[in-house]
Structures are given as structure tokens and as C-alpha cells.
């Protein structure tokens, strides 16, 4: 302490070799995903659901190709056949093979559900982040827009999208994607508002982190669990929504089919030919169940609070 006056030669000031200049972070993104996967693998229900979903997707891709029948092929000598080795799921009132219909329907229902939910997620996360980060007038404007969008009847949107595009799968996906992002936007906004006042975000800001770094490093991992659960809900909603549109006759048009359409037809035939309802209903319910369990598994796996 006494010889503190002795000057330190400037050549002693050298950067510490081997230390990265950017050392604010603890874990790298690759480690984050590896960690998520490791934790997800440990969840038996979620892994089983993932296998079921993959199996359903494989059947949707290959079953119609391998089938001897097509969805438009009617056979009036073989109507309402019970399930057998010739027709695994039986035939409907026009003699069409229900097995082929179920897997062709799976293509449409799964495509609608996944695509619509992904687009909703993108729009919802961006709007929610903007609303939460900027606050004030921007927030007010965006949130009231959301309120109004929720109140406009869904059927008006669908009818409008259908005139701009042709009726079919693309217009159904767009009708869902462009109107149903509001839920995710609200959730993300709420999370961003909550996160802005947490110690780790304030600490990071005071250490000079920019808004981009805040979003990628701190907001994203913390918002992810909420968004994942919401997305699985939205996939469910889109598949059910398509089913509702089919039920009232605005969905996919003949000869194409979807699970919703098959279930709607099955409900009408339930009394005499319950198999026509059972198979598509099982397919739709199994998918929903798997999606919910995968969503729960992913949420637990991505939640930073539960990390070891």
C-alpha cells in the first residue's frame, strides 16, 4: 500500500489472451437447444406423443399412395361396408374407401393446422413484442386493433378471404392465420411487459445490451414456453375451426376431404354406421391429445426457471 505511487509500466496492460471479448453471456444458443432436447427426451408422455404424431404424419403421406382406392372413386355395389381387410375402415354411402379418406383428410387437416399456427405465431410474436417494447400510443393502438379484430365475426373474414382467393385450402389457412394471431400477440405482450421489470433484464440493460440482444438473449427464451403452449392450442383451434367450417359447408370442397368433414359426415351416419364416425374421430382426438402433451413437454423443457 505504501509504494502505490510507483507507476505501472504501460506494457503490462495487455489483453488477457484466450478470453473472448464478448463474455456477457453464460450459455450459447446451441447449448440451449441441446439442453431443451435433453429435457424433452426425458418426458415419456411427450416422447410417446411425438412418435404418435410422426406415425400419423407418415400415414398421411404414404397411406393414400399405397392404397388401392382413391378418394373420388365410388363403388355403388359396395356401400356402407363394415371395416374388413379389403376396406380397413369400411366404406361410406357412395362406396368410397374410408381408410383412404381418413389419410387424405389428415394431409389437409394437418397442413391447415400447422401452417396456420406457424403464421399466427410469427405475426403474433412480432406484434406482441412491438406492443410491449414500445408501449404508449403504439401499444394502445395495437391492442385496440386486437380487441376489434376479435369482435369481427370469423365468418365475415372467411367469406372475404374466399373471394380474394379461390375457395380451398389456401384461403382457409389464410383466414385463420390473418385473424387468429391476436391471442398470441396478447400473451407475448403480457410477457414482455412482465420481463421488462425483471432484475436480469435491467442488469443486462445497465451493462449496455442493445434491444436486439435483449430480445434474442433474454426475451426469447422466456417467452418461448408461453408461445409454445399457445401454438399447440392454435393448431387445435385451426383443425377444429376447419371442422366447424366443414360442418356448416364452407370448408374443403368435394371430392377433397378433411378430418372435420369426415367427422361431420360420421355424426350424421352415427346411428347405423358408427365406424364412419369412430375412425376419423379417433384420428382427430389422438392428434389433439398428442399436440397438447408435446406442448406441455416443450414448455417444461424450454422454461428457463426449471433449468438445472
Amino acid at each position, binding site marked *: 500500500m505504501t509504494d502505490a505511487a510507483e507507476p505501472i509500466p504501460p506494457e503490462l496492460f495487455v489483453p488477457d489472451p484466450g478470453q473472448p471479448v464478448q463474455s456477457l453471456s453464460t450459455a450459447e444458443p446451441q447449448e440451449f437447444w441441446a439442453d431443451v432436447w435433453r429435457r424433452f427426451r426425458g418426458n415419456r408422455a411427450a416422447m410417446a406423443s411425438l412418435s404418435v404424431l410422426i406415425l400419423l404424419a407418415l400415414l398421411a403421406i404414404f397411406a393414400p399412395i399405397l392404397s388401392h382406392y382413391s378418394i373420388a372413386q365410388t363403388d355403388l355395389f359396395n356401400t356402407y361396408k363394415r371395416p374388413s381387410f379389403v376396406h380397413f375402415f369400411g366404406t361410406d354411402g357412395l362406396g368410397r374407401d374410408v381408410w383412404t379418406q381418413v389419410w387424405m383428410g389428415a394431409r389437409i387437416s394437418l397442413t391447415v393446422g400447422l401452417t396456420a399456427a406457424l403464421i399466427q405465431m410469427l405475426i403474433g410474436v412480432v406484434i406482441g413484442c412491438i406492443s410491449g417494447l414500445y408501449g404508449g400510443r403504439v401499444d394502445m393502438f395495437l391492442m385496440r386493433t386486437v380487441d*376489434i379484430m376479435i369482435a369481427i365475426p370469423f365468418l365475415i373474414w372467411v367469406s372475404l378471404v374466399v373471394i380474394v382467393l379461390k375457395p380451398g385450402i389456401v384461403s382457409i389457412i389464410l383466414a385463420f392465420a390473418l385473424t387468429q394471431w391476436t391471442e398470441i400477440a396478447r400473451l407475448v405482450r403480457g410477457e414482455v411487459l412482465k420481463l421488462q421489470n425483471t432484475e436480469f433484464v435491467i442488469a443486462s440493460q445497465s451493462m449496455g445490451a442493445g434491444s436486439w440482444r435483449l430480445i434474442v438473449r433474454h426475451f426469447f427464451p422466456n417467452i418461448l414456453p408461453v408461445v409454445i403452449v399457445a401454438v399447440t392450442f392454435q393448431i387445435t383451434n385451426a383443425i377444429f375451426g376447419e*371442422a*366447424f367450417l366443414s360442418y*356448416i359447408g364452407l370448408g374443403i370442397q368435394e371430392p377433397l376431404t378433411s378430418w372435420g368433414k369426415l367427422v361431420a359426415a360420421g*355424426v350424421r351416419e352415427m346411428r347405423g354406421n358408427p365406424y364412419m364416425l369412430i375412425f376419423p374421430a379417433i384420428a*382427430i382426438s389422438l392428434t389433439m391429445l398428442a399436440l397438447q402433451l408435446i406442448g406441455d413437454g416443450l414448455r417444461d423443457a424450454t422454461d428457463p426457471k426449471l433449468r438445472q
Partner: protein
Amino acid sequence: MLRYIIRRLIIAVTAMFVLATITFFLLRLVPGDPFAGPRITEVIKARLRAHYGLDQPLIDQYFIYMKHLAMGDFGYSLAKQGHSVNEIIREAFPYSLDLGLRALVFAVIMGLFFGIVSALNRGRALDSLTVILVLVGISVPSFVLGGILQYYFAVKWPILPVARYESFAHTIMPAFALSLATMANVARYMRASMLEIMTADYVKMAKAKGLNRRQIVLRHQLRNALFPVLTIMGPVVAMVLTGSFVIETIFAVPGLGRHFVLSMQNLDYTMVMGLTIFFGAFLIAMNFLIDVLYGLVDPRIRLS
């Protein structure tokens, strides 16, 4: 508090105005003709259009409509001739409200019960059973559930009436079918938030003070766990109380739900407008009510 309410009212009225304007013009973009029909000739169509003022410039129609709307007049239905939209809503809404309230009460009580039981027995058989029940509730479309219920409990074993809405027995199946999805969601959110709160400092504190489990659950956990459930309830309540097309169609309930779909299929402009504004007002009122409830559940939140 008064200033807060006035501010909310101004925002609400503005939102309703924007909603009415957007819906009015969007609706006119939808292709089709409200008076389309096999026996309706061009001459009749023109006369009908003139009768309902649809031959005037769109912008004039808009101002006429808004003027009447400001006085609470939704105009005449185009499809159900001779009936005003106010009249149709006044007749149909009580059925939907009655059905919706029954469904909601059942859904909230059972949902909270299942959510709490499952959270308190986390990881045990009772928890798994509840989770499966909830997942089934979410995974089955309402028209499948409604159809199956009706087939078994009314056709195969005639315990309950098949359809219509006349006595208490008539209300059981539609109310149950309508409530299942809401019940499942309430249970799911309640379970998640109960679990999150179990590790909160004030719960640990309560344990340290020596309170018994029942007191901790009743006094500390329940109250705080209700938050996320309240948040989702605004739109859900509005949706359930204004009627479900599927359930009302299956069980032949003369409620409002069917009109949402029928009016759009008929392109009944005034009816669609009336229903949209009615539902919008309901939604905004519900969200306001929820915000007020927030303040009651959590004394830290002051309305400002």
C-alpha cells in the same frame, strides 16, 4: 375511479364505432345478394333493394345506419321479413343466456375443482386422471360430443329429452356439451397456476408461520392462482353467453348462436351487423368487468 370508468367508456365507444364501421364495409365486399332466390326476378329484387334502402349510395346507407345505431336501433332483418333485428335478438338471446349461464357455472365450479385437486395431488393417480379428463375435454369437437350424448342418453337409453329447450331436463345435455371445453381450459390453467404458486415466497412464509395446509390453500394459494384463469375468462364468457351454433343446432335450442351462422349464410346485412355489435359490446363489457375483478382479487392493483 370515476375518471378511470369515464376513460374506459370513451375507449369502449370509440372501439364500437370502429368495429361497426369496419364490419359495415367488409360485409358489403362479400359477394352474393341477400335477396337471391329461384323465384325472385330482377324486378322484385330491385323493389326489395329500394324498400330496404339498399339502392342508395353506400356512403349514404352508412350514415343512415350509424344514425339509427346511435339510437340503439339495429334496423329490420332482410331474411326474416317484418322482424326487426332488435326483436330477433330480444327473443333469442334469453335462451342462449340461460344455457350459457348454466354451462358457465358448471364449467367454472368443476374446472376449478379439478384444477385444484390435480395440483394438490401432483404426480399421483388423481392428478393423471384429471389431466386425462381435461385432455379429452379439449380433444373432442363439440359436434361429436353433442351427437354422441344425444344418441346415447336420448335415443338408445331414453333418460333425457332429445332436443328443444323447455324444462330443466332439456337443459342438461346442451349445457354439459357446451361446458366441457371451458371446464377443461379452466382446470388446465388453474392447475398450472396453483403449481407455480406453490413455491412462492408468501406460501413458504405461511408454512413457516405454522398455518395448516387447508388455511394456506384457501387463504393464499387460491386467491393468487385465480389470476391467469380470470385473464382467459373475458372472451370465453362473451362467447359462451352469446350462444354456440353447433350446440344450438344439435339440440334445437332457439338461441342466438344459430343466427350468427344463418345471417351470414343469408347475407342478412342488418342481422350480421346487429349481432356483431351486440357481441362486441358484450366482449368489451366482459373485459372491463374482468379488469375490475382484478382489483378485487389483488389489492395491489389500483385501477388507474
